[in-house]
């Protein structure tokens, strides 16, 4: 059933800035077919390091489309400096909130944006840092730690909602619990 608010519905049914951008000078890609959602973000950045245009192509559920659409609206006109600080929460907030189990869609937006900016700056995107914890969705321990800290997550289930880790075969759930506990213990 629809459990999205009106703004999410609107961005899904009438997505803004859809499509490939032929003259983009920065592209960020995240997600995959096997994961069930993926986002390709196109940016046009001018000489003063400002994002003058943005568009997207997304494969995924309604909230993935809505998050992508919202992201492009938010970042148009932003300086790279500000865009680099944008978080998944900013995207979810812009949409008036996403269902908890769909937060990974907003994380995907943040990830694609950071990749696009790094590619523009010529920073090589290396293999994901850290050790893989979730084989199903290719999520590392460092990514989990960062997400837990950034979003004040409290459980392995929260981690699944945000970065999908643990949502496939479920074998890594105990490991994720250990990571969450160690982060909480540090805090």
């Amino acid at each position, binding site marked *: 059933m629809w459990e999205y608010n009106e703004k999410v519905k609107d961005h899904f049914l009438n997505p803004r800035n*859809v499509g490939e951008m032929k003259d983009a000078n920065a592209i960020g890609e995240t997600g995959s077919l096997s994961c069930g959602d*993926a986002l*390709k973000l196109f940016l046009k950045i001018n000489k003063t390091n400002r994002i003058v245009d943005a568009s*997207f*192509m997304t494969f995924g559920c309604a909230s993935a489309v809505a998050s992508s659409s919202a992201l492009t609206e938010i970042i148009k006109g932003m300086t790279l400096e500000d865009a680099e600080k944008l978080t998944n929460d900013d995207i979810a907030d812009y949409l008036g909130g996403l269902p908890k189990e769909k937060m990974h869609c907003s994380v995907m937006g943040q990830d694609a944006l950071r990749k696009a900016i790094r590619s523009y700056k010529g920073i090589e995107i290396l293999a994901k840092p850290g050790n893989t914890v979730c084989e199903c969705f290719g999520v590392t321990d460092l990514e989990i730690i960062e997400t837990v800290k950034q979003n004040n997550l409290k459980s392995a289930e929260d981690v699944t909602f945000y970065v999908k880790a643990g949502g*496939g075969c479920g074998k890594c759930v105990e490991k994720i619990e250990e990571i969450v506990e160690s982060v909480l213990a540090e805090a």
Partner: protein
Amino acid sequence: MNIVYTDNNATTKVAPEVVEEMMPYFADLYGNPSSMHSFGGNVGKKLQEARERVADLINASPVEIVFTSCGTESDNAAIMAALELNPEKKHIITSVVEHPAVKNLCSYLEKKGYELTCVPVDREGRLDTELLYDTIEKKADQIAIISLMWANNETGVIFPVEKIAKKAAEKGILFHTDAVQAIGKIPVDVQSSPVDMLSLSGHKIHAPKGIAALYVKKGIKFAPFLKGGHQEKGRRGGTENTASIIGLGKASELAKKHLNEMDTRIRGLRDYLETGLLAKIPASSVNGERNNRLPNTLSIGFDAVEGESILLLMDQTGICASSGSACTSGSLDPSHVLMAMKVPFESAHGTIRFSLSTYNTKEEMDHIIATMPPIIKRLRDMSPFWKK
């Protein structure tokens, strides 16, 4: 907006004839069928008629029908009874594509120390009967129960229950089948397919939700799952859900009457819908063995788009169906059935299940065939995986 309901493997409309049959048993004829007075006893007689009607649908004897609250209860009751009566046998055989009612119970039992064989299926959803028969040969004396569905809820693929039942009987192994999806769609006959136990559910055949039955073959020892009163000849405690049982009886009578229409008109509509969608939407493919499926079920995958998005756009036009995608199942992986069949992610995530009933019409199929292509195109136009 008109609703086009093609999600009948999820649940069905309660038939008006069924509602009519049930109505007197709520407020007027509310007696307890176990009572000594005739006010209650007469309700008991009506329950007997319902039991006869359900038995007649599957060619069983009325005494072999135990009423339960849902398909899940029937499945649980069957498997748990087998384990309780064969405490020395620790092996359970099932398949990788079972409904959660069987699948998750068996996983739970595995954790409790039972040995589990989950028989795989091939790319078409066909059961690996070689492995099944091999396991039966090798472990006959250790197997407490074999539980296999008659037909799959997602793809409609039909398992060779008759052959398996005969093989199990030869070896003296209890065989239970979850026939919840098969009932009312194809002929189910417990004489020609000698299963020991069979689950069926009311709300899949135009009876209300909350009523189901378990067939328990005469002579099979049985231990009740719900321990309590003497109801159902001691096989299921609890005061009978009288109105719903009477509804299930009427629905069974109607289902038997409609079997021929299912096989002809509804099969025709399903094939018409399938042909129409395949012709109008490129990169679409049917999941499951096409010439061995329930006549009402179509599982069709659209490459490079995602199921939840498809369903929500369909919802905007009043079409109800289901998806095999992750986002609608509560899990993050696509359906375990499609994964077990090794359907590629590309089409598994974009799989939609249409399931028809005798209430569907050709006009509705035309509406779906006209509505789907622009929906799929719209999503493909924004998909990074769609190669034009």
